[in-house]
């Protein structure tokens, strides 16, 4: 009953001992750190194991070893049927082209929905929202048949072209919401200065939408980089494989003897995600908090 603390701003009411809030904060931190430890320990263990010689990978819970080596990284890099130089190159290519595609198609579509009037606008927007909730599996089979007919199996087109055609409705929605909140006065004054719609789009709306553009680029990066089902369906030539596919092939072919190499390559495959996350975590977390994306 004496614990009177407001919600976001703890205020000390008469009768609340200062010590109480201090103890509370300590307990809070202790709990959070415990959960974090459990959560992050597997990642740290993965990192440690990737630097241990193969005969030590399965020995011990600890992170450290006296025999740290980068041998796993050297062996793992060349372990697949093509080398990981190739796989990382493939993943990078697919990811960059997908990001550009999403930025292109989603920003154009979003501008139209947020700023222009056209017939069937509400109906089309409802369809857009509908496709956001649609499970991807319903288009999986027919898209495969389509791409197969087009002769696109073992090319990167099935993994990249859909992004240029705005299939990720989530990002369109995100940008529509963002552009709607931009002041229209800027458009008007640009128009008086002789700007057309493309001018307004390029010179006014896009520069102001950088946060939404950044969020879209980051999430596209993470989804595409991690994507497994797409490459699994469309890429079966080993020199075309992306990193997740190569890792899975590695896992299938590997006995316990080369787990260290598998872990080394796993670490490298996660490193870009962690790196970009560190650079842009504020953007990502704000993005997810406002739109509810995964």
């Amino acid at each position, binding site marked *: 009953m004496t614990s009177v603390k407001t919600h976001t701003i703890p205020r000390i009411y008469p009768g609340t001992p200062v010590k109480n809030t201090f103890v509370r904060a300590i307990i809070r931190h202790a709990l959070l750190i415990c*959960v974090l430890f459990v959560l992050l320990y597997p990642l740290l263990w993965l990192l440690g194991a990737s630097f241990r010689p193969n005969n030590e990978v399965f020995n011990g819970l600890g992170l450290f070893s006296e025999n740290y080596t980068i041998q796993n990284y050297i062996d793992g890099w060349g372990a697949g049927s093509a080398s990981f130089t190739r796989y990382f190159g493939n993943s990078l290519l697919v990811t960059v082209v997908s990001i550009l595609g999403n930025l292109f198609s989603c920003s*154009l579509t979003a501008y139209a929905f947020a700023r222009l009037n056209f017939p069937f606008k509400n109906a089309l927007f409802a369809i857009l929202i509908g496709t956001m909730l649609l499970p991807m599996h*319903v288009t999986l089979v027919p898209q495969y048949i389509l791409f197969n007919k087009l002769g696109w199996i073992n090319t990167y087109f099935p993994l990249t072209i859909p992004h240029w055609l705005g299939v990720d409705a989530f990002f369109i929605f995100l940008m529509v919401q963002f552009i709607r909140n931009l002041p229209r006065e800027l458009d008007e004054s640009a128009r008086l200065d002789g700007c057309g719609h493309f001018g307004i789009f390029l010179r006014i709306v896009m520069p102001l939408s950088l946060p939404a553009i950044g969020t879209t680029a980051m999430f596209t990066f993470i989804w595409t980089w991690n994507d497994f089902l797409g490459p699994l369906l469309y890429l079966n030539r080993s020199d075309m494989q992306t990193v997740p596919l190569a890792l899975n092939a590695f896992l299938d072919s590997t006995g316990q003897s080369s787990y260290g190499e598998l872990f080394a390559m796993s670490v490298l495959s996660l490193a870009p995600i962690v790196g970009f996350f560190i650079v842009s975590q504020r953007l990502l977390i704000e993005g997810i908090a406002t739109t509810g994306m995964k």
Partner: protein
Amino acid sequence: MSVHTQTSSPETIQSVLGSKARKRDWRKREVAVAFVFLAPWLIGLIGLTLGPMLYSLYLSFTDYNLLSSPKWVGLQNFVTMFTSDERFWVSTRVTIVYVIFGVPLILIVSLMIAALLNSKIAFLSGYRALFYLPSLMGASVAIAALWRQIFGGNGLINQILSYFGIEAGSWVGNPDTALGTLVVLALWAFGSTMIIFLAGLRQIPAELYEAAAVDGAGRVRRFLNITLPMLTPIIFFNALMVTINAFQAFTPAYVISGGTGGPVNSTLFYTLYLYQQGFAQLNMGYASAMAWLLVAVLAIFSGLFFWSSRYWVYYGDK
């Protein structure tokens, strides 16, 4: 004011008219411009979403193996599914168990951590970032491979248990526990759900808590009578999203079971079975039927969920 408008000079009238004509012209062009802007998305919508959906609806009534042309079989695919395909029922059961255990766990843990973080706490942004990090990796092959080791025969978990003198076999290799390891993996990636809860908690006005505290409501009362009701829109959103995502989980089950859904079909997710039917056995008609059944189930679930929301979701304006 009105005097002024009545006595406006001819020049102003002229310019107003001119701008009206310009506006009409602008409007006309606007529609054309809009469809230029919309073109990529419209092409994708028709060519990659709506068209394929209709085609797969057609395929679901056919027998099609990609090599010969589709053969119309009526409802045969659905009849087979419900009456004679044991693995279909196994995959349905596995998915439902996964959803029933995974979704509430994710929601409860997310809400608890969000509540802990929702205070004037030091290092808030650091905590947020670290809790969020796993959710970026949860669907990756690397983490699934790691999971296979952690829950393997001589993996991390069993090494910890052996310190306490407990000997256990492989968790991934045991049909009774394999699905559990996938639930744990989904739970591990709870960060994104948690961030949305945290954003929701921050929206609740502090005055409500102050008023309740003045009235003598304790911590638990305040949580039950203020936090939970105010948070129901966010709970609704998160529950819907987490459930829809759980129904579609694929990569972890594929990687951990080596694509088989084993051991003994214990990780045969619905999506994994769909993949096997469609792309390993080339039963594309059957796979399409399964996909449409999933769409129907998710649509009914979402519909019921939206309908139920009027009874338990609190929107401030009511």
